[in-house]
């Protein structure tokens, strides 16, 4: 059902956990299937310097969260905002069709985290 790359990210997820003093936190969930993802970021020089995730969901939800964090770590924020859920699925070597829309939501959580960071920054300045 899942390819080796997905199973690798599911079994050994990268960047799991939370950042207690995060600069931005983003959350998203699938109303339909109930999966929930949370992304924590730290930003330095307009780049993502640290990123962690927490996910309640299936194998695809966990693997796509892990892959996304790996893809955007060190990326400039405007670049990171251009990463799509589809990009994440492609980098995983594909996901089962049914999972594409319900569990592959990590990029949305990241957008929310970046927006949260920018909001906090705007409020501070």
């Amino acid at each position, binding site marked *: 059902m899942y390819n080796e790359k997905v*199973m690798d990210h599911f079994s050994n997820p990268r960047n799991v956990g939370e950042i207690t003093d995060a600069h931005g936190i983003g959350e998203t969930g699938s109303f339909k*299937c*109930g*999966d929930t993802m949370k992304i924590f970021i730290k930003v330095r020089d307009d780049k993502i310097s640290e990123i962690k995730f927490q996910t309640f*969901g299936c194998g695809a939800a966990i693997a796509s969260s892990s892959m996304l964090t790996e893809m955007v770590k060190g990326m400039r924020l405007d670049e990171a905002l251009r990463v799509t859920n589809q990009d994440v699925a492609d980098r995983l070597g594909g996901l089962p069709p049914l999972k594409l829309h319900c569990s592959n939501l990590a990029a949305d959580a990241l957008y929310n985290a970046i927006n949260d960071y920018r909001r906090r920054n705007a409020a501070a300045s």
Partner: protein
Amino acid sequence: MESRQVYMDHGATTPLREEVLEAMLPYLKEKYGNPSSIHSPGREARKAVDEAREKTATALGAEPAEIFFTSGGTESNNIALCGAARLKGKGRIITSGIEHHAVLDVCQDLEKQGFALTILPVDRQAMVDLRSVEKALDPDTFLISIMMANNEVGTIQPIREICTLAREKSILVHTDAVQIVGQLPIDVKELQVDFLTLSAHKFNGPKGIGVLYVRKGIPLSPLFRGGGQERKLRPGTENVGGIVGLGRALELAVGELPGKAEQLQALRDRLIKGLLAMEDVTLNGHPQKRLPGNVNVSFKYIEGESLLLSLDLQGVAASSGSACTSGSLDPSHVLMAMGLDHQEAHGSLRLTLGRGNTAADVDYVLHVLPPIVDRLRKMSALYKKER
């Protein structure tokens, strides 16, 4: 603890027994006759089908003429429900919200065709309330279909009592018994049921063969038209090898029943006890009135598919009612009908024991599960939030 392969998905299917395969093999090889032929090879096949029918009847407390071979549980359910409905033409059918799709979807289709349908609710333990059955019976009701034991949570329904209620009002009763055959004794005469479905691969027989028991004198309209096989109720050349396998598997399963149910139940209770000792775990289904081989629990804060994948990596085969494993994005209709919320349904795990499972298997599952649950909870976006 040493790693091992543990199959705990006997509710999905069971391994074919060696003795059953041996009984079948001649009919897949040299004894290839068509039971309808009058020559020796044909008569040889006919004899095998007749013997299997007798064994099946004996195992269920039925008469051979009441046994009809089909392709499995789904077909048996369809023949009983559609066959009875077609003869009746109109009226009300009563079923429950926790039926297998092979009953529920058939009933809903009949509703679209103009029949009235009542889908009875169940309680938190997945039990159908006898009073709700009684209340639902109206003068139009001609058929009740309620399963003997639920496939997901193992709750055993009061079919005998339902049949008594129905009999007073000349209402037909069908029961899907695929999960219970081979786990607990069944006597169709004692139950007073009109139609009963069973499927060989749930009791260590082959896939693709099942039975519909039809009480003597109850007419049914066939779904297929064709030859005269199975007294025209199910035409088509008999699956001789499958029928022989079903007969042998049922004979063996029922023969071993004294002692087997207790043995399975002891393993089940050992497993349930170990699971409930973990934090934030709840038992789904009835604590006592449940199949000897069924365990179903919900783990809070984690999702079933992740659990299944992790267990599979450790050699354990199980199943879940999670939306992520359903293929439809919806959580199990059974767990929802029981009143579980989405998260509880999401975190459900079904472990179904069968022949071959040992205490060492149970202990292995209880050994590998806690670290998996711990890992997934630590990863979960819901874990800390609610604590």
